[in-house]
C-alpha cells in the first residue's frame, strides 16, 4: 500500500497539522508501512459480521435535561493562552 505525497498533504490539512516539505517523504514511508500492516484486515471474511463499537455493546446513557454543573468560566479561562472580557482570543477571522 502506498500513500502519495498529495494524500499526506490533504490529510495534514484535515488534521490541522502543518507538515513541512522535508517531513513528507519520511511520513510517506512510515504511513505506508503502517497501512501495509493494516492491510492484513482485507483477508478477513467479515461479510455477516456486525461492527463492534463498544466491547460491552452498551448504549449511550441518558439523564434528565437539567442543569447540574455550575459556571466555572473564570477557572477555565485562567489556563487559556489568551482571553479578554471573558472571551477566548484568536487571530482576527473577519476583516
Amino acid at each position, binding site marked *: 500500500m502506498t500513500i502519495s505525497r498529495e494524500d499526506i498533504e490533504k490529510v495534514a490539512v484535515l*488534521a*490541522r497539522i502543518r507538515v513541512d516539505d522535508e517531513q513528507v517523504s519520511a511520513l510517506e514511508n512510515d504511513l505506508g*508501512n*503502517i*497501512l501495509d500492516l493494516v492491510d492484513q484486515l482485507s483477508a478477513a471474511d467479515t461479510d455477516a459480521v456486525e461492527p*463492534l463499537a*463498544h466491547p460491552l455493546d452498551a448504549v449511550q446513557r441518558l439523564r434528565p435535561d437539567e442543569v447540574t454543573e455550575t459556571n466555572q468560566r473564570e477557572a477555565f479561562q*485562567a489556563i487559556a493562552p489568551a482571553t479578554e472580557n471573558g472571551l477566548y482570543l484568536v*487571530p482576527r477571522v473577519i476583516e
Partner: protein
Amino acid sequence: MHNKSVAELSRELESGKVSSVELAQQFLDRIKQQDGQFNSFISVTEDQALTDAKAADEQRAAGNATPWTGIPFAHKDIFCTSGVRTTCGSRMLENFVPPYNATVTENFRKAGAVCLGKTNMDEFAMGSSNESSHFGPVTNPWGLSKGEKRVPGGSSGGSAAAVAARLVPAATATDTGGSIRQPAALCGVTGLKPTYGRVSRYGMIAFASSLDQGGAMARTAEDNALMLNVMAGFDPKDSTSVDRAVPDYTATLNEPLKGLRIGLPKEYFSDQLSPAMEEQVRSAVKEYEKLGATVQEVSLPNAKLAIAAYYVIAPAEASANLSRFDGVRYGYRCEDPKDLMDLYTRTRAEGFGTEVKRRILVGTYALSAGYFDAYYLKAQKVRRLIQQDFINAFKEVDVLMSPTTPSPAFAQGEKTSDPVTMYLEDIFTIAVNLAGVPAMSVPAGFVDGLPVGLQIIGNYFDEARLLNAAHQFQQVTDWHQREPQ
C-alpha cells in the same frame, strides 16, 4: 521500609510504628536520591505530599483510617490532578494545570492516600518504550548495574520503573493496547488492566476512548487488589462506565486454585516467542498445575489480526480525541499566529511529537471520505471476530495464560527507527483491549537477568479471579520480590 508492600505499610501505619509524614519523607528522599538515573517522574509534589501526609496522620488519630490512609503512591501523568501540572508526556500540556480532579484521583484522595508526584509516560500514552515522552526517556532499573540502558516499556513506563526501583510502593497506570501489562512485565512488577468500563475514564486524558482503561501497578497482586478496591466503580461522569457492584477484591485472594481451568492460546506460543521466554512461561504454568489447576490448549484464531485492527481503531479515535488541542482554550499555543489556520496548524505541529502526529494522520486518513468503510468499519468488524474468540475460549476455561511480551526489555533506541517494529511489541496484549476483557501481568522469571511477565487474561468482570490466581502464584514463587541492583 521501601521494600514493603502497600498491605505491609498499611499495617505499620496502623500499629503506629511509622507515621504517614515519616513514610512520605522516606520515599521522597529516595526519589530525590535515585530518580536522576531513571527519570521515572515528570513532577514530584513534595509540599503537597507532606501536607496530605500530615492530614492522613490526623485522620488516623481521629479513628477514620482506610487501608490507604497515609500510603505514598504516584499517579501516571495522564490523570488530572487539580492544581498540579498534568502533562500527558507532551509539550502540548507542558504547563497545563487542570482545574479539576480525575475520578481516580478523587478516589485515592478520599481514601487518604498520599500522592508523591506524577510519573513519566509515552506522549499521550502512544508508545511501548517510554521513548516518545517530551520529558525524556525512562530507563529500566533492570540492567543498569551492568551499564545497560534498557526501556521500561510503555506507555506507563514511569509508573513501572518507579515501582520496580522502590521509589513508590504503587502507581496508577492506563492500558489502551498493553500500556500497563507490557511495562509491568519489562520491569518485573505486577499490573492489572481491568474490564473496559470498570474504572472511570473521567479526567483521564483520552487516547482511544473505546480501548482506554485505567488500572493498577504494584509489586504484589494483593496490592493490585487494594488499588482496584479504590479505583473501580460506577461514575456518571464517564458515559461508558459500567453500573455494577464492586466486590472486595482482597476477600477472595486466598481461595484455593484447585480445579482452575487454564487455557493456553496456541497463537501466543508462536515463533515470535523466544525459546528462553517460552521456557519461563511454561514453568510458571507448571506451578499452577502443582496448585491444582488443569491446563489445556485453546485457540484465538483471529488474534493475528489484532494489531492490524488496533492500528486503525486506536489512531482513528485518537485523531478525534486530540482535535481538542487547538491552542485556544488551554495548553500550548504557537508564537505570533498570522491567522486562525496558522494558529491551529503550527500549534499542533509544534505541540505534538512525531509519534502522536503520525497516529493522528493515520487516523484522519482512515476516517476520511472514501476510506471509512475499508478501514474503520472493517476494523470494527474484525474487532467483533476477536471478541468472539475470547467468548468462545471462556466457555471452556476460566483464565488464559501467555507470555506478556515476546522478549524481555530491549535497549533504548533499538526500535525507534520503524514504528511498525515498535507496534509488534504489543502482539500478545492488544487483543485483550479490543475485546475489553481484564488481564494482568505477573513476574514469572528471568531471561538474561531481565524480568519475564506471565499474562493472565480473564472473562468480563473476572478481576477477582485474576487477582486470586496471581496472589496464589506469588505465595509459592518470589519473582515479584526480586529487586534490581
